[in-house]
């Protein structure tokens, strides 16, 4: 039955050989290789739900009077964008489900990217010849963060408007070029009508296209260079061990996709995310406590909350306090991320291609550094949500914030030291195990040889 169309296509395009080779492509069997797939499939869900939302969302700040099903906002003046958000949430069939799935998929997407990146980092998968793919990966993370921010900003609700205003303030804080930067990005002094249409165009066309393109490049490089392998029997820098793309890997991967889709759909129906109707329409003079960005920008928010009020002038130009935690810190973070494969070469002096991964304990310094940075990010995330944490735990916010100002330095240093010591201890234990094993093997050989 399927033979005729297959022969018809193959006799014209000669795809059989290449398909056979592709289906036999080897993928290593290890759970940690699936983290990137969680991110990839989250992106698939984002695109699918995003197409649905784009049919109903209006990227306009024209002021309208709301007359819809949510009567607590009946007769309230708001932007057309916000009205369309309410329309999607209350009047479009399955609109709220899809909207919540979109937002949950975004939160999970970036979480999965970071988990995947942590795996790459701690196992040294970014070493030669895969530095370029690390750079593509960091770019993907950056684009995902940017698109998350654009999506958060186009809602037209109080929370998203406040977030847009903070992004504007951060960009404005860049000495000398701040005003120009904000003008080309936001289209004027926020709140301004130009911003939402711009961000929407970036959110649904430019950034997703770039992400798709780079995902293609990311996967092509993995295909071309083959996967890395964890250390194990028969695994060398020249040989890969695993299962074939078809059928075992494809089925495993599809199973993961369906499970993820089920979880996201379940969250979309059972757990509220970004209830825009509770926040109300954006009004530049209104605000609320507990106003946070989505978690993936919580570390920047935390840095801004903890940073002391230091303003000074360089050559007559003001460097506002917001510049350091809001702009300089994230830019430096990404600069180090981009350069890390090359920075590490200077430390390890290892310039050979490495296709076998290393265990985290085999490079104590890198592991300790990664753990320290991760710990700092966790503290900063708590700082970004400090008022919510204080409210929920009945703590005094001012005292909690002072404590966090200490912890943001102490916790990373302690975590780094502990991680280093654990690595060294582990390496020593493995070394003695290996020595015992080798001695045992030699004894066995001596016993068996004479026969």
């Amino acid at each position, binding site marked *: 039955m399927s033979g005729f169309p297959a022969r018809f296509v193959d006799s014209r395009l000669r795809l059989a050989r290449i398909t056979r080779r592709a289906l036999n492509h080897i993928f290593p069997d*290890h*759970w940690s290789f*699936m*983290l990137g797939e*969680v991110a990839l499939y989250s992106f698939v869900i984002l695109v699918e739900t995003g197409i649905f939302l784009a049919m109903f969302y209006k990227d306009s700040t024209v002021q309208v009077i709301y007359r819809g099903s949510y009567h*607590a*906002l*009946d*007769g*309230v003046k708001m932007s057309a964008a916000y009205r369309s958000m309410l329309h999607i*949430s*209350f009047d479009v069939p399955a609109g*709220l489900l899809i909207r*919540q799935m979109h*937002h*949950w998929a975004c*939160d*999970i997407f970036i*979480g*999965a990217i970071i*988990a995947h990146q942590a795996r790459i980092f701690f196992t040294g998968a970014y070493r030669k010849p895969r530095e370029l793919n690390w750079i593509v990966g960091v770019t993907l993370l950056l684009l995902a963060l940017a698109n998350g921010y654009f999506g958060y900003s186009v809602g037209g609700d*109080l*929370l998203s408007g406040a977030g847009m205003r903070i992004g504007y303030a951060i960009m404005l804080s860049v000495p000398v070029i701040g005003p120009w930067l904000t003008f080309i990005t936001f289209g004027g002094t926020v709140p301004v009508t130009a911003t939402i249409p711009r961000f929407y165009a970036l959110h649904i066309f430019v950034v997703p296209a770039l992400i798709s393109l780079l995902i293609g490049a990311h996967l092509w490089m993995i295909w071309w260079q083959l996967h890395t392998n964890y250390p194990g029997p028969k695994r060398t820098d020249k040989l890969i061990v695993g299962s074939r793309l078809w059928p075992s890997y494809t089925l*495993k991967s599809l199973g*993961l996709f369906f*499970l*993820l889709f089920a*979880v996201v759909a379940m*969250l*979309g*129906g*059972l757990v*509220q*995310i*970004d*209830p825009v109707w*509770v926040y*109300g329409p954006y*009004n530049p*003079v*209104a*605000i*609320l*406590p*507990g106003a*946070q*960005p*989505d*978690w993936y920008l*919580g570390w920047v928010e935390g840095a801004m909350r903890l940073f002391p009020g230091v303003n000074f002038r360089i050559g007559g130009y003001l460097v506002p306090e917001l510049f350091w935690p809001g702009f300089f810190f994230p830019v430096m973070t990404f600069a180090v991320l981009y350069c890390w494969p090359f920075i590490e070469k200077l430390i390890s002096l290892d310039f050979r291609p490495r296709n076998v991964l290393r265990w985290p304990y085999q490079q104590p310094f890198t592991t300790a550094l990664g753990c320290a940075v991760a710990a700092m990010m966790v503290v900063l995330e708590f700082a*970004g*949500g400090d008022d*919510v944490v*204080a*409210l*929920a735990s009945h*703590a*005094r*916010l*001012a005292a909690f914030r002072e404590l966090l100002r200490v912890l943001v330095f102490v916790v990373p240093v302690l975590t780094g030291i502990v991680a280093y010591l654990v690595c060294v201890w582990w390496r020593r234990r493995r070394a003695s195990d290996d020595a015992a094993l080798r001695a045992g093997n030699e004894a066995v050989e001596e016993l068996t040889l004479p026969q």
Partner: protein
Amino acid sequence: MPAAWSQRTGNAGDPFVHGEEVFAQHCAECHGDLGQGVSGVVSIAGPNLQAEHDLGHVLTAIEVGPSHMPSFARTLSVQDMRDAAGFVTHKIAVIPMEDGNLSQGGELFRMYCSACHRTAVRGGALVFDGVNAPDLTTKSRALIAGAIRWGPGPMPKFPPAVLSDQQVASIADYVKYVQHPPSPGGSPMNWYGPVAEGFVAWVVVVSMIVVAMWIERGGKG
């Protein structure tokens, strides 16, 4: 005794005159001579009563003594309590609490109140004074309206020149609505916002890692 009440109430046999006496003797210390509320020393702080129109509610409060308020069931006769309650609901309660408009209340709440109490009226942590803006989910309309005029603790007062009686009633309507709002789309997680959402997202990411481990083990154990 404030002269204002005597002028209004007239003759001596009037229950309001007796109610006023009881009020002045037993209630004014904590609730203020005009029922405007007293703040400052926390132990004698009493809320503003100028929106308490419900006679039964006031009578119960006098008898039972909610929260920090003492019970007057043994100190006062039934007639004393009734007169005092009547005096509160008819003379002290000067905010009519009528013609409130829900969506106008929301607009006003976002303008004047949400900066501390959040739009979800569940309170917020504030950096000054070490005081958190309280959760309003258990407050009655009368307490909400009273607090707006009274300004308990570090909360500012909002006199009639800032918010009219009708606007106060609207805000109370909004708070009452958001206390138990319809919550489409599942659990609101106490309206903690992106912090709670981020936490859930990471729970899911970690669960997906566990799922990946399970898949790699061939779906066993």
